[in-house]
């Protein structure tokens, strides 16, 4: 009987590892940008192309930076949550309209609501690359000093909002 104990233990360890592996999202790759300064850029605004936006403009505020596009299906999924959240006015949400057509983007906001204080237009996706965007929607929590404190890949869920984003925002806003 004893001689089976070691293989059995090894098998159990393997099963535990695989079980943990199953619960993790392989798309959720840890971002190297965490705790680094948000990459600088200056882009035109979606609503008013003559105005521009730079992360510099948000210095001194805690804010969310949400990457979205009208062609992005998951963005629609997270959008009602963002709209409701923005209404509470707890923290400004800036959009990055990623690789989109201007008309499509504007229609999309008109149709589904606009949770953003403004959206910057990243037509060729160059700024997206600097932010390590690979699966829209993505959301960054940026602190008063302009550091990225958290990156959320994929649509925000009520759970991730309540358990991760809001507590972090509250802590950073102190």
């Amino acid at each position, binding site marked *: 009987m004893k001689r089976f104990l070691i293989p059995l233990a090894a098998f159990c360890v393997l099963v535990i590892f695989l079980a943990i592996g199953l619960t993790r999202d392989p798309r959720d790759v840890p971002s*190297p940008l965490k705790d680094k300064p948000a990459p600088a850029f200056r882009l035109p605004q979606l609503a008013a192309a003559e105005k521009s936006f730079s992360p510099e403009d948000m210095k001194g505020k805690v804010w969310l930076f949400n990457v979205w596009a009208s062609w992005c299906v998951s963005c629609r999924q997270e959008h009602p949550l963002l709209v409701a959240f923005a209404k509470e006015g707890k923290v400004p949400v800036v959009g990055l309209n990623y690789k989109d057509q201007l008309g499509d983007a504007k229609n999309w906001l008109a149709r589904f609501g606009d949770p953003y204080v403004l959206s910057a237009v990243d037509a060729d996706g160059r700024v997206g690359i600097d932010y390590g965007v690979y*699966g829209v929607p993505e959301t960054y929590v940026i602190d008063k000093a302009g550091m990225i404190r958290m990156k959320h890949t994929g649509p925000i869920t009520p759970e991730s909002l309540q358990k991760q984003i809001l507590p972090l925002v509250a802590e950073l806003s102190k």
Partner: protein
Amino acid sequence: MAKEAAPMAADVLVEKRMVAISEELRCLVCQNESLSGSHAELAQDLRREIRKMIGEGKSDQEILDFMVARYGDFVRYRPPMKPTTWLLWGGPFVLLAGGIAALLAFLRRRARETAAPALSEEERRRAAALLDQSN
């Protein structure tokens, strides 16, 4: 002569280097494809960036660093050796060593069990008698 062909050759060289670099990189949109083989739009954009950086005279290492700074070690098919990746690099060898140790232990035990038991003088005589009988 070589000079006249330079523009074309340079293009080919850039393309070759771009492919070589992008084969080392994972496409994050379709994670099991390399950046060089992927048709995802992000992969195309990143290949464009790599071409641009080659044009700017950046070294391969600088280009890899550019990608890692944005997407993390995960983009590299050959992640660097560092404390968080020791298990990744060393794990297979640890498993191999464990396997060899288990095999050796098993062989040694079997050799002991199957070794011909020593017979005493008395037993040898009995055995010889039995063998004689059966003949």
